């Protein structure tokens, strides 16, 4: 494996493992940022559109393993976020901190929006409260975590 590609791969894998450790291993919920969508967004920066959608699909299946209502909502949302993320990053300079912040913020919010749209109407929260209060806060939290990771692992970010 190309060492430059390798560092990005390890960063994305590390985020996924850390996410599963926090959310499944320790049972934390929204107290921890959504590192899974961060992994998809980061992976999409260096992957082609088909590969990024495959990554989103795979991580979405992991996310939905415990879902009894709206099974598949995360799969759908993560797949689209992966594909669109890769397309956006191929068109813009995705290395700047400003771009990354907006990219994480909009990416996480979009993921929540897509999941809300296809979720069972009886199981989801009201649209305004979910998409204009809860979700923006979670997006801010995830973006802060993403930027912190960017500052900590700057070299890996150049590739991821």
């Amino acid at each position, binding site marked *: 494996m190309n060492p430059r590609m390798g560092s990005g791969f390890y960063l994305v894998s590390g985020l996924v493992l850390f996410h599963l*450790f926090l959310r499944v291993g320790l*049972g934390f919920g929204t*107290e921890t940022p959504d590192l899974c969508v961060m992994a998809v967004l980061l992976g999409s920066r260096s992957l082609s*559109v088909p590969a990024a959608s495959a990554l989103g699909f795979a991580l979405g299946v992991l*996310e*939905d*393993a415990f879902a009894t209502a709206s*099974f598949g909502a995360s799969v759908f949302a993560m797949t689209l976020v992966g*594909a669109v993320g890769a397309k956006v990053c191929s068109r813009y300079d995705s290395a700047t901190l400003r771009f990354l912040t907006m990219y994480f913020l909009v990416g996480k919010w979009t993921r929540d929006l897509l999941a809300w749209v296809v979720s069972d109407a009886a199981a989801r929260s009201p649209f305004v409260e979910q998409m204009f209060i809860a979700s923006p806060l979670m997006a801010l939290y995830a973006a802060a975590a993403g930027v912190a990771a960017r500052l900590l692992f700057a070299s890996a970010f150049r590739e991821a």
Partner: protein
Amino acid sequence: MRRDFLVPLGFVLASLIFLVLPSGTQRSIGHMVRSSVLMPFIRINETVTRGRARAQDFDILRNQMDSLLTFAAAQSTLAEENTQLRGLLSLRNREPSRFVATTIIRSGTSGAENVFQVDAGSEAGVLRFGPVMTEVGLLGQIQEVYSHRALGFDWSHREFRVSAMTVDGRIHGLVQSQPGTFREQDRMVLRGTAYLSELEVGTELVTSGRGGTYPRGIRIGWVSEVAETLAGWSHSYYVDPAVYPGQVTHALVGAGPIRSFPFEPEEPSR
């Protein structure tokens, strides 16, 4: 260029198919992922939960045991009296329920907010739709049973229903969950009580046993306020739950009457 469009489109279509798969197939996929990729993390969760329970203050456990012993001693003649009365009335003996002690494993992944896994399955006698309860009241119900594990949901799940009554058995109704604006505001609501039978705030509600899913007498919660009144027809009441799902680490799972044990391991229902 064509591949760049068709492959992602294929994945998006596949994800849409996931949404409309029969629930049995969805359960199988979820179980497959849980028992393979996620299993190491589930094991960590089990270890952490058990460790946390072991670290619980000894004095609290001692007090709980003392309370139970006092209660058991006070009720010691009840079984004998009950047998005699049933004999006088020529009533059949009620089948005693059996419960299995389990560890509750919760995942923080999205969509799993009101779902939990227990570390006992059909081999321990756990049955589908079996009640899950703690020492203070009803937590939820088992939905999927596998050989060594089972998946259930707590009372905040939209499909949760339980027949309820007041402790004196005078007023009956159906308790179900009512989602709040935010997840933290989810609560239970008692519906279908007779219009002329008003409930005081603080009235305790227990399972009535109707339908046979939940044994009679498990505490559900306490009436907190009137939710809705249909003129001349019925009252609905909000109910403060006896059990807050996020705090539960251990629970008892209903495993059916003692006479039917051991059970045949069964495949999850489709």
